[in-house]
């Protein structure tokens, strides 16, 4: 029963976000200077009167604003995000085609950050005020201040151009590899650099958060009790301090999911990764607003999804959270 309530809660939340983003999208197009029909047509046949008339009737642009909003909402809820006039294809189809690549990239980066951030942060906290701690904190401070796209370019320069270890762009080799296993390995090899690029900033954030959180937790009474019981130091650190200290980090990771999806645009552009971010970049240059608005809506949904994953993780880390609801 509790699981069902949880699921319904999330569906409602997703629906509210879709609704709100849809209204925002609607307003954004009307915020643009000039005729919304021309804006939506982008550079594709903006001069063609028949084409513009078609868009106007599709979106009811000649009717009152509220009616237009109604039409727009109905379209979105029936999964009709309109046409990409530039590509002559339905926006929904283009988005779904690219979704797996982006999920793979952001998911890997998220996992990479959530594993290495707390791990290194815990090491820094356990070795607080030693050389290891200082070195880790300086590195974290550096990556915390680095633009993601620049890290990507540097990694390509070092690992692809200089060392030749990893492919610099794309998701698969240009010459297709035979066999499922070989193809999977090929994709993984292509995944490493982009996922590390996207994840490094968040590793830096979580290292700093974990360290601060652990040092704070270490002063609490139950930790002293654990030590007084004679538990070995590493057990106190992992089972007692880290477990509690992880809660704010997981919460924060959920909040950061939106950034992660945004960062994917930049990373996919740098690595020519065939996902939604790359699609957004192309749409940007073709002034293909319908497509761009679709990307916006889908990425907001991805944030809701990442929030849900975070919530599940929180329940695993702290059973009290589930039972409280």
């Amino acid at each position: 029963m509790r699981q069902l309530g949880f699921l319904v809660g999330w569906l409602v939340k997703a629906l509210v976000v879709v609704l709100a983003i849809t209204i925002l999208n609607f307003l954004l197009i009307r915020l643009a200077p000039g005729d919304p029909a021309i804006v939506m047509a982008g550079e594709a046949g903006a001069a063609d009167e028949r084409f513009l008339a078609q868009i106007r009737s599709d979106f009811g642009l000649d009717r009152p604003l509220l009616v237009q909003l109604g039409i727009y909402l109905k379209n979105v809820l029936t999964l009709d995000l309109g046409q990409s006039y530039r590509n002559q294809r339905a926006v929904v189809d283009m988005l779904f085609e690219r979704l797996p690549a982006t999920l793979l990239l952001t998911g890997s980066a998220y996992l990479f950050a959530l594993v290495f951030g707390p791990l290194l942060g815990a090491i820094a906290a356990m070795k607080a005020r030693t050389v290891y701690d200082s070195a880790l904190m300086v590195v974290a401070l550096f990556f915390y201040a680095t633009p993601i796209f620049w890290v990507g370019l540097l990694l390509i320069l070092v690992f692809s151009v200089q060392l030749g270890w990893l492919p610099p762009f794309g998701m698969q080799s240009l010459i297709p590899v035979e066999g499922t296993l070989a193809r999977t390995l090929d994709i993984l090899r292509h995944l490493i650099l982009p996922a590390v690029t996207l994840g490094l900033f968040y590793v830096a954030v979580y290292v700093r958060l974990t360290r601060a959180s652990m040092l704070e937790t270490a002063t609490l009474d139950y930790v002293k009790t654990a030590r007084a019981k004679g538990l070995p130091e590493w057990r106190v650190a992992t089972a007692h301090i880290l477990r509690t200290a992880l809660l704010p980090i997981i919460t924060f990771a959920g909040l950061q999911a939106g950034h992660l999806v945004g960062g994917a645009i930049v990373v996919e552009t740098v690595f020519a990764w065939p996902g939604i971010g790359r699609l957004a970049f192309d749409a940007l240059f073709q002034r293909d607003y319908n497509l761009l608005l679709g990307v916006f809506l889908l990425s907001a949904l991805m944030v809701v999804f990442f929030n849900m994953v975070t919530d599940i993780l929180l329940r695993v880390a702290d059973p009290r959270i589930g039972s409280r609801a």
Partner: protein
Amino acid sequence: MSFLKRFAENRGALLGLVILAAIVFVALAAPVLSPTDPWATQGRPLLPPGSDFVLGTDMLGRDVLAGIIHGARISLWIGVLSTVVAVVIGVSIGALAGFFGGWVDDVLVRVVEFFQTIPSFIFAILLVAILTPGLTSIVVAIAVVTWPPIARLARSEFMSLRSREFVEAAVLSGVSRGRIMLAEVLPNAVSPLIVMGSLMIATAILTESALSFLGLGDPNRISWGYMIGAARTVFRQAWWLSVFPGLAIVLTVLAINLVGEGLNDALNPHLKGRIGLER
């Protein structure tokens, strides 16, 4: 211990301050340090660092050093301007929510939460693209996506200060609520807001660089992000075109972060190391 003394004892913060001062100086003195137009062709294209040009030239023979010097202006300017706008929006909304509570608070908190769910960078891209790229649209876009954390902070500060005696005394003596919020509550909430604001400048600079990298910068002003983005097609042959502007961004953001964290430790010792990370 006084604020200055606490700040001065923080070596990282002092280092940050020195770097930041140098960058601000370069930005202010750009027309003197590099009098020629950074957009103008100065020599042969793609000259490596050294020779006549310390940091080399780009595909069109423009001086990379001149670009970096002039780029400092736009980075700092957009960082400061967009943060000021974001702080004004955030503090206004947070103050109203925290001070009035009740349904006002409920509604405003929902708005803040919604803006935190929106993928902020994509929203910023959309805003800049639709409003057409330029200084104003970039500042507006960055401000619109960065105000929520400030609003949350202002809300919690106003909420806890509202029930304090000096505020109640002011209410009883008939001072208008607007005046109480501005003259009584705000000055007491200002130090954590300053800390978060200073750290937001760093985030704003990173966001601006990413927008410019994608080609959404102000087309009339050279910026570090633009330089890296424009050189993307040749970056494997000409590493200096992306490495040096990138270093400029890192140094600036790092310096601001160090100063911001130093301010935090000095102004709010009880919040040591907490505010900055929750942006």
